[in-house]
């Protein structure tokens, strides 16, 4: 029954026009970035590298597909969750608002299976959105700008990663990005269970992301104890894969925090959904 309803959920997601907004928005956003970089990327790069030119000499193709993918991922990782929430935040509350939750609730499917199938469908949707993000930023980026060594500027200075040492990092980076998006998807589905209108959970998810991002970026001692546990703090953990050496302990900690959020939100949603009266 779980698999059958997951299939049902995928059919519903595919039939809803809003499911394509994320893909269209990513295509437009990344398309604009790629075109802008094609037109004016060299001056953008020289602005970054100019401060090092007195001590370093840069040779080869600096503005390449690998750097473009890094820039895009960095720019969009905070915004893509909003596109995910647009679909996942509506999965339960949208049905409550439409009245179909009442119809489905009378069918012989347990509430656990019903809700878990929504989580699985949301996870599959998020997966394809992440794959689309990877395809546009990395594959199209490499096609348009070629490949080469990746120069990354972080708090410790410049890190130069050889071309043959990059793809596995991107593979893991997109896996981490997927895990962060999955935690956002789970959070929005959880909010969706508590609501009977389709806009509330989407707006709530956006509000939480904005709030957590602000708390995470404020250098206030009061927030020091909170910051390590916020989803948004660990959404940037993919960047650690482009450090030398890779801080695996920090990455594993981020993975554990994200998984904890996924399990926590799922458990909370299941608990509430099982005791929820369907009155809509």
């Amino acid at each position, binding site marked *: 029954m779980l698999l059958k309803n997951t299939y049902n959920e995928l059919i519903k997601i595919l039939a809803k026009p809003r499911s394509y907004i994320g893909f269209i928005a990513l295509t437009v956003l990344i398309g604009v970035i790629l075109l802008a970089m094609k037109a004016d990327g060299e001056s953008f790069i020289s602005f970054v590298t100019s401060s090092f030119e007195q001590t370093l000499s840069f040779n080869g193709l600096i503005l390449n597909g690998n750097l473009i993918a890094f820039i895009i991922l960095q720019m969009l990782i905070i915004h893509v969750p909003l596109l995910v929430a647009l679909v996942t935040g509506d999965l339960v509350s949208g049905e409550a608002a439409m009245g179909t939750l009442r119809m489905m609730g009378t069918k012989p499917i*347990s509430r656990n299976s019903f809700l878990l199938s929504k989580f699985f469908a949301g996870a599959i949707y998020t997966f394809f959105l992440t794959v689309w993000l990877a395809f546009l930023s990395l594959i199209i980026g490499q096609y348009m700008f070629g490949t080469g060594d990746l120069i990354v500027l972080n708090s410790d200075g410049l890190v130069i990663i050889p071309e043959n040492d990059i793809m596995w990092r991107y593979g893991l980076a997109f896996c981490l990005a997927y895990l962060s998006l999955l935690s956002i998807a789970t959070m929005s589905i959880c909010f969706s269970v508590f609501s009977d209108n389709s806009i509330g959970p989407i707006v709530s998810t956006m509000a939480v992301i904005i709030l957590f991002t602000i708390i995470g970026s404020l250098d206030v001692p009061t927030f020091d104890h909170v910051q390590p546990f916020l989803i948004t703090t660990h959404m940037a953990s993919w960047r650690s894969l482009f450090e030398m050496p890779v801080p695996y302990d920090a990455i594993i900690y981020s993975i554990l925090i994200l998984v904890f959020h996924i399990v926590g939100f799922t458990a909370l949603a299941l608990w509430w959904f099982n005791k929820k*009266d*369907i009155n809509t």
Partner: protein
Amino acid sequence: MSEVVVSVKNLKKSFKDFKALKDVSFSVYKNDVFGFLGPNGAGKSTSLRCMLSLIDSDDGQIEIFGKSLRKNRFDVLSNIGSIIEKPDFYKYLSAFKNLEIMARISGRQVSKSEIEDIIHFVGLKGREYSKFKTFSHGMKQRLGIAQALMHNPDLIILDEPTTGLDPQGIVDIRELILKLSKEQGKTVILSSHQLSEIEMIANRMVIINRGKSIIEGDVSELLNSSQMMVKFSCEEPERFCDVISNEFSNISEFNVTDSEIEFEINREDISEINAFMVHQKIKISGIEQKRKLEDYFIKMIQNED
């Protein structure tokens, strides 16, 4: 007595401080078309929602097909088809896709040809690939009935299925319900706030009001009871009451308004009273009779208003 299909005992449900169900009990037998009658807000939908596990009752027992709903939810719901309030489907999907989705989790194997058959049965042939959002209210209702029937359940629960339908649609739904009961041997629970509708199709009924079941039994027995409420119109109501009190000891309570006197009486006594008044030279200008249950139900609804 035939097999009990649904047994509800002492059902209670509160929403915060509001007691929606205080004590609802009734039994539905195999092949019944069971009327679930009550004014708006009486607790009909809440009771039906409890029976379909949409909401959890605070107290009481629900047994369907001899099994506890709580312990056998899958088995019980696999054998029930229902429409609660209004049939809502995925508006961005076609009627056929909607039925496919419902069929997949109906608990029984439903083939595509069976879905086509049921679409034909409810008269939606030719519109099965139209999106739900393009359907009229009547077509939505028919699709709702299709999803309730497609997995061939033994018990069908319809919550006010004729609401909002045009006269022909109402007749069609009534005929369909009778057909399901008589030709296919289904048990049907039909909720309504219209006594006339229940009278036309149901063989048994329960009346609920303010969260309590008031009366349950055969529709014909309950509605054809010899107890009547009769309203006499005459020029001398006070004298009329005196004469009645002296001659008919079983009548003691009158409701007198202007030139009208209303009281409870056996059907066979009406002509006798009329003849007696003629003999007493009290001019009767009108006699209006209502069945006691009908009168009770109308008063119940008027109180709600």
